[in-house]
C-alpha cells in the first residue's frame, strides 16, 4: 500500500481553514494519481491504493467539514463516497480471492476443487465490480470531480 503523501502546507501554527485547503489539495492529487490502470484486475495493488486514497480524502472532507461551503461540500462528499463505495465493490472480491488462494495453497489437491469454484464465483463479482467502477470513473470525469475538489479547497482559502 502506498504511504500517504505528506501535507507539506500543514504547519504547527496553521489555521484550521488553511490546513483544510492544503489537505484537500494534496489528497485530491493523491487520489487521481492512482486512477490510470485501476481497472486492470491483474494489478490489484493500484486499486487498493486508490481506494485507500479515497478514504483519506473522505476523512479530510469530514474532519474539516466546518471549513467548507455547506452545499458544495455535501455535493462533493456524495460523489467521493460513491467513488469509495465502488472502489470497495471491486476491492472486496480481490481480497477474498487472495485469501482463498492462500488457504488453497495449503490444502491437498482433492480439497481444492471446492475453493476453485468459490474463486470462480468471486471472479464474476470482481468483473461486475469492475463494470460498476468503470461507469463511476466515467462519471467522475464527466462532472470533473478533481476540479470540483480543488475549487472547494480554493473557496475555503478565500472565505
Amino acid at each position, binding site marked *: 500500500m502506498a504511504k500517504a503523501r505528506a501535507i507539506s502546507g*500543514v504547519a504547527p501554527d496553521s489555521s484550521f481553514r488553511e490546513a483544510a485547503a492544503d489537505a484537500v489539495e494534496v489528497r485530491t492529487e493523491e487520489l487521481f494519481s492512482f486512477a490510470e490502470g485501476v481497472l486492470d484486475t491483474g494489478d490489484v495493488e493500484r486499486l487498493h491504493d486508490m481506494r485507500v486514497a479515497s478514504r483519506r480524502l473522505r476523512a479530510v472532507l469530514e474532519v474539516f467539514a466546518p471549513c467548507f461551503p455547506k452545499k458544495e461540500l455535501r455535493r462533493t462528499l456524495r460523489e467521493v463516497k460513491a467513488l469509495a463505495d465502488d472502489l470497495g465493490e471491486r476491492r472486496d472480491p480481490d481480497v477474498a480471492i487472495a485469501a482463498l488462494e492462500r488457504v488453497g495453497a495449503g490444502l491437498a489437491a482433492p480439497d481444492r476443487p471446492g475453493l476453485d469454484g468459490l474463486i470462480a464465483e468471486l471472479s464474476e463479482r470482481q468483473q461486475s465490480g469492475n463494470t460498476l467502477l468503470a461507469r463511476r470513473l466515467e462519471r467522475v470525469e464527466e462532472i470533473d470531480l478533481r476540479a470540483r475538489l480543488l475549487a472547494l479547497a480554493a473557496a475555503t482559502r478565500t472565505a
Partner: protein
Amino acid sequence: MKARRVKGLDPDGSLAENALRIAHTRLEELHSFASAARDPENVTALHDMRIAAKRVRYLLELVEPCLGQPAKRGAKRARALQTLLGEIHDCDEMLPLVRAHVKRLRAEDATAIRAGAGERATDLDPDAARSAPNRTRYRGLEALHAYLRARRYVLYARFVREWADLERDGFREALEADLARAAGATMKAGSEEGVRAS
C-alpha cells in the same frame, strides 16, 4: 456508522485546538463500542468499532505534522486496532459467503440427481449420489469454513487481549494528555513567532 458531531469547531481557530476537540470526540466514539464488542457475536459493534478506529487513525495521521510524536504513536495504535478488527470483519463476511455457496451447490446437486431419475421415478437408487456434479467440492469448502471459524475465534481472542492492553495503558487518557501538551507547545511557539514578527 455516522460519525458523532464535534461541537465547538472554529474554522478560523488553530489546527491544533480544533484537532484536540475532534480527537476527544473520536476517542469517545471508539470507546463507546467497547462494551458491546465484548460479545464476540456482536458483529455490528465490532464493525462500528473498526470504523471508529479508522476515524481516529486518519485524524491523527492528518495532524501529525502539527502534533508530532503523540499523534504518530496514536495513529500507529489506532491502525493496528483497525487492521485487527478488519481481519475479523473479513472472516464475518466470508463465512456467510461460503455457506451460501455450499447451499447453492447442494441445491444444484439435488436438482441434477432428481433429473437423472426421470419424471416417473418412485424412488432413487443410492448409486445416484455418484452423479452429483458438485460431489468433490464439499470437503474443501467444509475445511475452509472450519478454518475461517477457527481464525475468527483466534483473532477475536487477540482483540480482547489487545483492547485490554490499551485500556490498561490508559491509551485514551494518555493520548489526549500528550496531544494537549503538544498542542500547547505548538500554540506557544506560534504566539512567540507572532510576537517576534511584530
